[in-house]
């Protein structure tokens, strides 16, 4: 299939992918996923961390099949189009910590860029502040990029290394199939489940997995990235990736209106709080971390699916970050930020600035 022109990487292809995600995400909500959370890479990785017991926040424990689908769908596309390239070695430990702080910021706001878009499309006004924070964080990141910031070059590696995260996802899928939820129980052997809260809300497994595979496949082809959308517009005034992100927001808005899921307002929005400053700052931290690591949480999953071991390390950082966030009271809840959320965001911003300022000589 190498000879086929990659239509998905053309602007119209990218808009098409944005429209498709904009349809599928609200539909997943309609079919059982949490409100304004049809797809949220950060929240879903946090739910996976909970299901495995890395944190014990009872309301957010579920192995989300969408995440598994994202990685494996991307891998299938990468293999079909001969783009599976095992590679790693671009400052993995730095990416691990960027992943941790990206998650800490995301859980202060309560969402990744995808969910910020879906919250906005569901009428949640607080998402505007989060999106502005995201743009601000990415903008800081572009200043570092212009100043020569680089995590260095990757090296080609064994296929085994590129398979690590996809295999981890296969393992997670095996766990859900072996230990499905027992009605009325919060645990099946080693897997934790939520009895109430967002973790208890999910679309049927086969649908979640199928949608994940489809989006993973198309996102690998189109290079869909919400952080890149903002970054490339700031750096190059390029509308290319941004057109896909905007298509997602507008389509999700229309689908929400049709499905009766559009409920405009600021207060009382689902899985959201109204501490605007920290919605802003949490997303600033995340946006900066995504920009320094070269992709939004979704894009990191798609890259990991095509063999990028550094992106896989970022993903593991996010899962660990979810454990840290919930174990140490950093994560927000609808009541507001957690007891240690504010110092965690401050520390995260300092760490990101340190990384941005110090890793800036181009390695030739």
């Amino acid at each position, binding site marked *: 299939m190498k000879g086929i022109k*990659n239509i998905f990487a053309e602007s119209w292809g990218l808009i098409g992918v944005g429209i498709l995600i904009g349809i599928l995400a609200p539909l997943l909500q309609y079919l059982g996923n949490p409100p304004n959370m049809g797809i949220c890479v950060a929240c879903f990785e946090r739910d996976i961390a909970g299901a495995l017991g890395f944190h014990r926040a009872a309301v957010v424990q579920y192995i989300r099949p969408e995440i598994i689908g994202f990685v494996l769908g991307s891998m299938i596309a990468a293999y079909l*189009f001969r783009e599976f390239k095992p*590679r790693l070695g*671009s400052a993995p430990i730095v990416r691990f910590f960027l992943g941790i702080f990206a998650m800490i910021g995301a859980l202060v706001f309560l969402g990744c860029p995808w969910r910020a878009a879906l919250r906005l499309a569901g009428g949640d006004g607080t998402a505007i502040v989060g999106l502005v924070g995201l743009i601000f964080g990415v903008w800081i990141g572009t200043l570092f990029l212009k100043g020569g910031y680089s995590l260095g070059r*990757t090296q080609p590696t064994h296929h085994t290394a590129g398979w690590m995260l996809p295999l981890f996802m296969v393992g997670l899928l095996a766990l859900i199939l072996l230990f499905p939820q027992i009605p009325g129980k919060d645990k099946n052997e080693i897997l934790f489940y939520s009895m109430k809260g967002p973790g208890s809300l999910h679309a049927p497994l086969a649908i979640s997995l199928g949608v994940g595979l489809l989006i993973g496949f198309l996102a690998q082809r189109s*290079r869909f990235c919400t952080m890149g959308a903002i*970054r*490339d517009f700031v*750096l190059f005034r390029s509308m290319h990736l941004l057109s896909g992100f905007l298509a997602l927001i507008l389509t999700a808005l229309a689908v929400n209106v049709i499905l009766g899921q559009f409920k405009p307002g600021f207060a009382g929005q689902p899985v959201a709080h109204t501490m605007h400053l920290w919605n802003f700052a949490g997303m600033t931290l995340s946006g900066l971390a995504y920009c320094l690591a*070269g992709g939004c949480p979704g894009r990191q999953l798609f890259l990991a699916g095509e063999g990028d071991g550094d992106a896989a390390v970022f993903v593991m950082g996010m899962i660990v970050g979810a454990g840290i966030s919930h174990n140490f009271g950093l994560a927000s809840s609808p009541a507001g930020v957690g007891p240690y959320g504010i110092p965690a965001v401050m520390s995260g911003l300092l760490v990101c600035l340190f990384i941005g300022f110090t890793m800036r000589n181009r390695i030739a």
Partner: protein
Amino acid sequence: MAKTVDARGLSCPQPVLMTLDEMKEGSADELLVLVDNEASKENVSRAAKSKGWKIADISEAEGAFNITLRKD
């Protein structure tokens, strides 16, 4: 004059930034950009076109792409 931009092992936006830097520097009317992934190839090509440069040639060797860009 021809110049080479070696962006192998780097991911976007760095290959694009390096290519644009060389273009801005102005001494080259032909650039050979080396990248090792499809996304960078697409991004460098798109950026070059938007700056009014022509893609004279793209060749693939051992998983890397050699993109020859020429100023119009």
